[in-house]
């Protein structure tokens, strides 16, 4: 997999899934583009104005804690977030992101190495993060091979289709 390069959008610790995707929009179950319009809407409304498709989220500890709502990972992916790098993740969000093909990397030290708006490069295979401006790097623990496979296939659905011999999804 090619390294991912992008501008970062910086968050602090304990960003929960109610904040990422408010409960009042849980009735949206299938329209993923619509979900993307509500990322962080209630508590960090600036995100929708300032963040751009192609950005990478960098956060502190416990990103994605709380509810198991998959919309929290879906809305970020369909907004165009390329990857999420954090000091630590809550486990359900972490698994959801991988299953949806949204790369996530546990990389303590990244949050303190970058400031809002910096450009970074994330190499999932090597597990490394580079601050493109300063050249500083952080080495994270590598993702297990089967997780890289799921991400490489574009998520669990595509991965299972391949495994079960169902071929590629048409139309998505």
């Amino acid at each position, binding site marked *: 997999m090619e390294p991912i390069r992008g501008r970062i959008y910086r968050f602090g610790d304990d960003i929960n899934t109610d904040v990422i995707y408010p409960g009042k929009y849980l*009735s949206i*179950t299938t329209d993923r583009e619509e979900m993307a319009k509500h990322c962080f809407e209630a508590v960090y409304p600036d995100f929708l104005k300032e963040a751009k498709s192609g950005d990478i989220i960098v956060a502190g500890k416990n990103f994605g804690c709380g509810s198991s709502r998959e919309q929290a990972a879906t809305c970020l992916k369909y907004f165009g977030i390329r990857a999420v790098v954090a000091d630590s993740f809550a486990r359900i969000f972490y698994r959801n992101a991988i299953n949806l093909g949204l790369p996530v990397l546990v990389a303590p030290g990244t949050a303190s190495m970058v400031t809002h708006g910096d450009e970074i490069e994330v190499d999932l295979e090597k597990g490394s993060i580079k601050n493109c401006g300063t050249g500083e790097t952080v080495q994270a623990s590598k993702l297990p091979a089967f997780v890289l496979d799921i991400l490489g296939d574009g998520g669990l659905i595509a991965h299972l289709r391949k495994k079960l011999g169902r071929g590629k999804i048409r139309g998505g």
Partner: protein
Amino acid sequence: MTLAEKILARAAGRKSVKPREIVTAKIDVAMSHENADVVLRAFKEIGVQKVWDPDRIVILFDHRVPAESEKTAATHQRIRQFVSEQNIKYFYDLKEGICHQILPENGHSRPGDVMVGTDSHTTTHGAFGAFATGIGATEMAGVWATGELWFMVPESMRIVVTGEFREYISAKDLILHIIGKIGATGADYRAVEFSGDTISSMSVASRMVLTNLSMEMGAKVAFIVPDKKTVDYVKERTDRKFNPLVPDADAEYVHEMKVDVSSLASTVSCPHTVDNVKPVIEVAGTRIDQALIGSCTNGRLEDLAVAAGILDGKKVASSVRLLVVPASRNVYLEAMKRGYLETFVKAGGLVLNPGCGPCLGAHQGLMAPGEVCISTTNRNFRGRMGSSESFVYLASPATVAFSAVSGVITVPDSNHK
């Protein structure tokens, strides 16, 4: 091996497993609520025609019941159709109540089983000695297709609880106290085993409060080691065979914590994180607009009994909206028979239908900017229950009931009854 290790080893067909190993385990029970709509879309995308085992999938409606919008009505409709097409045996429509009460009541929560649910508070079912954890919708689609799932074997920690609770102090105060001590990430990725005399003598419902809220300190699973009380409860509710497991005497724990509850005071979790825990006395006098008794944490019969005991013959403060949400239809019926519902209504409370109610901010009693709610639920994140400018305090049914009467956050005290 610890209980988590023993259950995962058996489910993975292995003699033993070690923490941090990745194993593939067979799933005994797969639960979804309204988000089954997201699951079934992903399931159809996989391209498999039939679910792996229609008798091991449980589907119910609780998060938005009755439908609060046309969108949700359509969600319910699509799921009912899927249930019928796939011959899903265990389907509980919107009249029944909250998943984490319906599953135990109907014998789906069994010692030694591996359970997954598309709900983070699935850890609740560890109160019956099941390895039970929350997963996402896409992952659940994979479970529906294959009947198995990968897990990293968690490290285990043990919390030993001794002593007797004082009057009006309960499991809710205990678990909030523990979360306050170890923090929102204090049990991250771990299995938590609760043990000790206090746990042994606790009711099944109170045990569920502990495993339910363990999610809020990051636990992957939480357990009460199954005992006679567990087995009796489950046997009364299912004919399906189950095979309880208990941890080995030489099991290894990464951390052990001891708590003596005999000096524990009424405890509250303050806005806007669950680990922002204080003794109630430190925030006593805070004005409230809403008081909520219910949820998968504290909407059971014993919770309503405590609240009814406090509210009997009293009036809710005129400035306060008291909402009571029984956890299930059975709880509702029993509370009706015992006169609790009459007590709530006479006191000026509003009794809602069984379900998740306003806990997750979807409907039924949301909050305006500046408003304060004291609630027996499990999350107080900013904006969780309505406006991002509102405030939620989490507390026991006793604390909420006393506060509803006085109109301000109040330490439960029989002298003021």
